[in-house]
C-alpha cells in the first residue's frame, strides 16, 4: 500500500498523466517518517512508564514521611504485605466486590439491552435515560446514595416503610456495607454494559434469526443458541472493562463507607491510599498499588485471551 513513487517515478508522473500530481517526498524523509509517527506514542509510553518505573523503584525502599532519607530494603515491603492478614482480607473483599459487581452488571446490562432492542420508540427514550448514571461522577453517585440509604431520613427506607422494612441500616453491617457498595456500582455502570450489549445486538446478522423463526424456534432457544454466542464477544469486552475497573474501585466505597464498618470494605485501593497518603508510608502504599496492578494485569490477560478465543469462535458462525 505504500506509495510506489520514487524520485525517478516522480519525474515521469509530472510530465504526463492526467491524474492528480503527487508530492515529491525525498527518500530520507520517507525513511524518517515511520519514526516521526511513533514519537507521540513513545512520549505517551514514556509518560506512563516513567512514574510507573519510579514507583516500582520506590517500593525497594522504606520511604515514608518519617523517613525521608530511606534505606534500600529490597523486597521487604512485598514480603510484609503478603505476610499480613490485612492484605489477604483486603484482597478477598476486592475480589468479592469485583466479581459481584461485574456479574450483576453483566446480567442486568444484557437483560436491559435485550429489552431495549425489542422496543422501538419507548426503547429510544429509555436509552437516553439509561445513560444518565454514566454522566455522574462515581463519587457523587456514592454520596447521593449515602444520603438515600440513610436509615432515618433516606428515601430508600421511606419507600420501603409500607412493606415493613423502614428501619434497614444499610451500611452498618459488614455484609450490608459491601452489598450497598456493589449496588451503587451496579447503578452507575449497568448502563455501560447495556449500551455495549445493545450495540452488539444491533450489529448481529439478521438471517440466522429469520431462519430460526422459520423453523419455529422459541425465544429461549434462540437466545441460548444464537443471540448469546454471537453477542458474547461484546459482552466479554464489557466484562473485562468492568472487572478491571471494579478491582481498582476506590471512589464508590470510600465515599459510601470509608472502608468500614471495621475493615469490612477496605479494598486494596483504599488500603494503598491510606498507607500512602493518610499514613504517609509511601513505599508501602506504592507496593500495595504494584500488587494490585499485577493482579489486574494477570486477570485481564486471562480474560483477553478468552475474548480472543470467543471472537474466533464467533467468526465461525455463518452470516
Amino acid at each position: 500500500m505504500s506509495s510506489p513513487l520514487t524520485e525517478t517515478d516522480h519525474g515521469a508522473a509530472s510530465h504526463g498523466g492526467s491524474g492528480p500530481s503527487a508530492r515529491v517526498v525525498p527518500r530520507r524523509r520517507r525513511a524518517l517518517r515511520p519514526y516521526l509517527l511513533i514519537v507521540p506514542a513513545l512520549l505517551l509510553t514514556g509518560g506512563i512508564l516513567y512514574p510507573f518505573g519510579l514507583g516500582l523503584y520506590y517500593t525497594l525502599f522504606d520511604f515514608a514521611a518519617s523517613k525521608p532519607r530511606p534505606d534500600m530494603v529490597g523486597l521487604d515491603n512485598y514480603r510484609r504485605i503478603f505476610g499480613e492478614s490485612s492484605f489477604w482480607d483486603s484482597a478477598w473483599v476486592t475480589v468479592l466486590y469485583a466479581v459481584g459487581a461485574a456479574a450483576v452488571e453483566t446480567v442486568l446490562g444484557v437483560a436491559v439491552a435485550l429489552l431495549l432492542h425489542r422496543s422501538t420508540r419507548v426503547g429510544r427514550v429509555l436509552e437516553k435515560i439509561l445513560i444518565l448514571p454514566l454522566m455522574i461522577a462515581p463519587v457523587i453517585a456514592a454520596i447521593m446514595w449515602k444520603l438515600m440509604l440513610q436509615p432515618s431520613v433516606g428515601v430508600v427506607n421511606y419507600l420501603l416503610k409500607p412493606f415493613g422494612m423502614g428501619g434497614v441500616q444499610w451500611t452498618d453491617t459488614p455484609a450490608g456495607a459491601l452489598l450497598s457498595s456493589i449496588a451503587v456500582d451496579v447503578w452507575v455502570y449497568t448502563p455501560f454494559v447495556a449500551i455495549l450489549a445493545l450495540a452488539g445486538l444491533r450489529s448481529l446478522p439478521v438471517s440466522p434469526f429469520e431462519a430460526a423463526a422459520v423453523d419455529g424456534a422459541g425465544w429461549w432457544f434462540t437466545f441460548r443458541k444464537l443471540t448469546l454466542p454471537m453477542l458474547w464477544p461484546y459482552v466479554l469486552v464489557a466484562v473485562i472493562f468492568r472487572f478491571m475497573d471494579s478491582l481498582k474501585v476506590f471512589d464508590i466505597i470510600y465515599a459510601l463507607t470509608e472502608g468500614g464498618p471495621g475493615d469490612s470494605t477496605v479494598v486494596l485501593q483504599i488500603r494503598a491510599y491510606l498507607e500512602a497518603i493518610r499514613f504517609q508510608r509511601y513505599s508501602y502504599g506504592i507496593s500495595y498499588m504494584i500488587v494490585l496492578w499485577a493482579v489486574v494485569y494477570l486477570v485481564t490477560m486471562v480474560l483477553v485471551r478468552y475474548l480472543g478465543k470467543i471472537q474466533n469462535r464467533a467468526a465461525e458462525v455463518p452470516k
Partner: protein
Amino acid sequence: MEMRVPDRRRFLALTAAASATPLLSACGAGFGGDGQSGGGGSAADDVTGSFDWKKAKGRTVKALLNKHPYTDALIADLRSFTEKTGIKVEYDVFPEDNYFDKLTVDLSSGRASYDIFMLGAYMVWQYGPPGWLEDLGPWMSNSSATGAEWDQGDFFPNLLQADQWSLKAGAPLGQGGQYALPWGWETNVVAYNTEVFKKLGLKPAETFDELREISGAIKRRAPGAGFDGMYGVAVRGSRSWATIHPGFMTMYSRYGLKDFTVDGGKIKPAMNTPEAVAFTRDWAEMVRKGGPPSWTSYTWYQCSSDLGAKKAGMLFDADTAAYFQAVKGASPAAGKIAFHPGPKGPGGSLATNMWIWSLGMNAKSKNKHAAWLFLQWATGKEHLRKAAVEGNHIDPVRKSVSQDPAYKDKMKGLEGFIETFETVVDQTKIQFTPQEQFFDATTSWAASLQEIYGGKNAKSVLNGLASDLASKVG
C-alpha cells in the same frame, strides 16, 4: 490474528500502568527531600532592628485554609491586615474532607505553594518530624520580628503547649519547638435539648453510667413524647481518626485511661487493658442503645445537624458543633440547646480532649517574614477579639478575649456555654500520646470500635488492635 496478541498485551500493559500512575506520581514526590529540619539557624534571626508591621510591605502571603466559620471570620477581616502591613493575602479554601489530603500532598512535595496553613496539633506529629513545619519559637522570641502587643502570656498555656513538641515519639507536649500557633479551638462537652429534657424530666448526666442510661431513655421515650425519630446521644462513628478524639477520648481520659504508655522511651498500646476494654464495650453499647442509626458513617456534620434538627437529644462532641446549631435562627432546636461539661470520671475528673485549629508556616516558604507577620496578626488580640465578637470565632485561645465583656455578652444567650467553657478550659488538653503514627492508630481504633458496635468481642478486637499497633509504633 497472530498480530493481535502483542497488541493486546501492549494495550493491557499501558492501561494497567496508567491506572497506577496517579497514585504513584502522587507518592513519588518528596523522595530524597531535605529531611529533618533543624540546625542551621532560623530565618527569624535575619529580622533585626525595631519591630515594624510594614517591614514586609509589598509582599504576598499564600494561605491554605479549611472551610470553617473561624476561616470566614478571618477572611472577613483580611483587609485590616493588608492595611496594617501592606502585605497582600491570597488564599485557597478547601472543604474539610479534602483539606488535609491537599495539605499533606502539598507539604510532602517539598514545594512552597503555601506560606501558611491551618492545621491541628495532631498534624504537628505528622508534619513536624519530616521538617515541613517552621519552628516559630525563634520568631516569637525575636523582638524585632514580634511586637510587644502580641503578648504570648495571654494565650491559655495548655493551648500554646499543644503545638509545642520535641519531635520525639512519646515525649510530652509543651517541650521543644513551637510548630504552630493556637488560633481557634474546641472543647468537648455535652450539649442537650432542653425541651426534651424538661418533658422527660431528665437532668444532664454527671457520670458515664447516667449518660448511658439517659441516652437509652431518650431513644425509648422521646418519640412518644412528641419528638419523632429522636435518639439519645449523637457521637461520631465513621471509620476515621476523627471518631476517636472528641467525646470518646474525653470520656476515656476522664476514666484515667491512656492510648499508649511510654516506658523508657518505648511506646506500648494501652487500649486493651481490662479497664479500657470495659469502657470501650460500654461506649459501643451506649451507641447501640441510644445512638444514631447508621452510626458508622457519622461525622461531626451529622452529629451537629441531628442536634439542630431535634433528631438527637444530646451531643457529646465539640462545643462549636452545638454552638452553630444553637444560635438564633440556625436550626429548629435553636434557643433550646444548653451546654454542660459532661459526665465526670470516677474520681470527679473533667479531663477533656481538645481539637485545636492552629496556624503553621511552611518551612520551605520563601516569604517567612511576611508569613510571620500574618500569623502574628491572625493570632493577635485585635483580630481574635473582632472575630469572636463580630464573627463566629468562639472558644477564644486568648484569656483576654474570653474575659472580654462584649464576648461574654454575645455568648450569654446560650444556656451554660460560658460556665461550661470556664469549668473545662484548664482541664482541656491533648489527651493522646504524641507520636507519628497517630492517624493510623486512631483510624484503626475507630475501625475496632465499629466492630465492637457490630457485636464482636471487645477484648479480642482490642487485643488485635494493640498487637497490630505495637509493631508500628514500638
